[in-house]
């Protein structure tokens, strides 16, 4: 492990001798990281233990450790009372579809904005402007629109809306990443006779891979957790997504905290695995020096 702080990793830096000051810095860094991770993880650990507590123990003790043995029944019921796999599948379809559509549309647009100043300042600003509208009232005309084109209660309809909602985020993030590419690289490629699309595909995308991956993960998660449009636009198991499914644990006896925790943890797994898989591109992706 290198000890350099606040800088992107260089490849194979020669190890430096440890210095007392550096050791202290290192300790401080890991203490900070440790505290932040504790803040991040404790509620999740609490969620895990809540999923293993009986309803009565949940109500009696706020302890992180179940004291009356492990109560597996929550997990069993979470799956039996609510068709979780069905909801998860819908969420996955909607999430992947909307992310793919978002990137497909946002990539060329942001490239045109950055390289050719297409639409001047107005167009990018207008795109960001569409992100400003709070979705609640908007959901009424959107519902009418989706109803008119027959996309109510269809996974594709929801994916379409999530794409629209995430487009500004994706466009602006990608624009920022593309700005960091030196124009000489692209111009060199153009000399070789590549079209702009070709340059985008073969030069730009590999260069902004970390940014692209981060944007994709963000879009996927935003879609995965979106609640309001999903609530308004879906009716049945044909298209209802995981956030809707999980709200079903508000049962006749109040909120089933144990079951909802078990269900939520189940829902975290697929996205987490996806994020884990793509994570390595976040840092490794490329070293600019190598391309030049």
């Amino acid at each position, binding site marked *: 492990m290198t000890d350099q702080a606040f800088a992107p990793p260089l490849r194979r830096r020669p190890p430096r001798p440890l210095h007392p000051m550096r050791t202290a810095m290192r300790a401080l860094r890991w203490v900070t990281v440790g505290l932040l991770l504790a803040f991040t993880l404790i509620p999740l650990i609490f969620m895990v233990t809540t999923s293993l507590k009986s309803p009565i123990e949940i109500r*009696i003790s706020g302890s992180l450790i179940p004291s009356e043995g492990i109560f597996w029944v929550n997990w069993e019921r979470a799956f039996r009372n609510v068709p979780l796999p069905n909801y998860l599948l819908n969420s996955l379809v909607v999430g992947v579809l909307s992310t793919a559509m978002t990137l497909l549309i946002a990539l060329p647009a942001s490239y045109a904005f950055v390289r050719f100043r297409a639409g001047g300042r107005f167009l990018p600003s207008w795109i960001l402007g569409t992100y400003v509208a709070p979705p609640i009232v908007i959901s009424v005309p959107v519902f009418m629109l989706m109803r008119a084109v027959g996309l109510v209660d269809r996974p594709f309809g929801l994916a379409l809306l999530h794409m629209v909602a995430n487009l500004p985020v994706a466009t602006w993030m990608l624009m920022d990443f593309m700005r960091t590419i030196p124009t000489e690289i692209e111009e060199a490629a153009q000399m070789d006779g590549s079209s702009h699309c070709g340059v985008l595909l073969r030069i730009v995308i590999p260069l902004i891979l970390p940014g692209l991956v981060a944007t994709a993960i963000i879009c996927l998660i935003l879609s995965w957790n979106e609640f309001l449009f999903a*609530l308004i636009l879906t009716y*049945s198991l044909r298209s209802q997504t995981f956030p809707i499914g999980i709200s079903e644990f508000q049962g006749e006896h109040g909120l089933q905290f144990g079951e909802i925790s078990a269900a939520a943890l189940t829902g975290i797994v697929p996205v987490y695995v996806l994020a884990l898989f793509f994570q390595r591109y976040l840092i490794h992706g490329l070293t600019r020096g190598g391309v030049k």
Partner: protein
Amino acid sequence: MRLHNRSFMTLSGALAAALLLSACAAPAATSAVQEVEVTRQVEVTREVEVVREVVVTPTPEAVAPKPFEGQSINVLTIQPHAVATRALARWFEEETGARVQVLVVPYANVTEKTILDVTSGAGEYDVVEIWYPMLGKLVESGALEDLTQWWEENKAALQFDDFVPSIADPYTLIDGKRWALPYDGDTHLLFYNRELLDKYGVKPPTTWAEYREACKTITEQGKSEGIYGCAIMGAKVPIILLSTFINRLQGYGAGFFDQDGKPTINSPEAVAALQELVDQLPHALPDPKAVAFDEALGGFTTGKVGMVEFWTDLGQMSDNPEQSKIMGKWGAVPMPKGEGPNAASRPALNAGFALGISPLAQNKPLAYEFLKFVGRPDINVRVNTIVGGLDPTRKSTFDAEAYRKHVTPELADAAKAALSGAFAWPTNAKWPELQDVLTENVAEALAGTKTPQQALDDTQAKWLEILGQ
């Protein structure tokens, strides 16, 4: 899915015979499946009903002709009633061969979903569940089918007079027409923890002042051990906060409107009732402003709370070993009285639901058939003897042996008495707006940003404006 089913039906008339044959072959397989389910579910209290059910359902019935075989309807229900509505759907399917798809939404969103479905012309729902104070709004919105004629035609089968009189009209009647079928009769009782009350030498209260004193006594002595005299649901959600307020409002003999329909929400009685509520807050489980259904329920069933006003099925939950530490140690009394000349012990119809039919229902005959099925007295008993989130709407159900055994005879009597004299929330088309203004102001009184007098004066002024008076 459902469209597919329907077009499939029309297109495959020729296959009807084959379908019938398969229907005859089906029962054996079905019952086998159900038995497997039973063995899996036996230990789980929440689903005990399945066990009884299989015994009840005779196989020969399945062989009888099923008039609605192959047809389907969509029924919109709220999450707390998902278990009950799904059970009804299953029984209806067994009896008629129809397919009932139960679509579940959070109770907070049920009205907007219903209205939007009709306004947009989507028409996905055939039968919808209604929180009864929204009835006027739904009717005004054109979101409900007029059931007056249907009630007339089915008088005998539906036995309208058997519905508890206090709910029969409020749940169904707007402007002289009937729009719905009572589904879930909800009211509050004052539950208490006998052990705690005995320990601290307190008797179940009969007036709100006694209640406050009792609550104070217990809290003062028990606080250090985490014991509180009472839990008050003061979270800022209309169905929660207004239930709490109306319980007191009724005790002081106050109402919302006078004979001529003029608001009287800032009458001295109403202000006294809100003042009483505010005075009770410091002694209750902290902090009433953050206490909703789950917090109150949890506090009471774990034995931390001496008294709570709650829906009648708290009795069942308190006797559920998985959920409760106070099995057999609880009791219930009618709502306390207020003070002054109009003081009365009068519960209110807090929550409460009905079923209606969407004017855009794609299979109206089947929707009517489903309503008729749900409205049957024997079905009312059957659905109220499972743990499904419903409470009886019929007098005969309260008296039925099966129900009395299910909830204990004492609770059945107490619930019946409470429901019978209960005060109905307004159901006019302006009520959604009015209740929001009231909720906002009562919440401010609880938070101390307005005095009770100010809060209700402001409510009165705003109500007059909304009603155009």
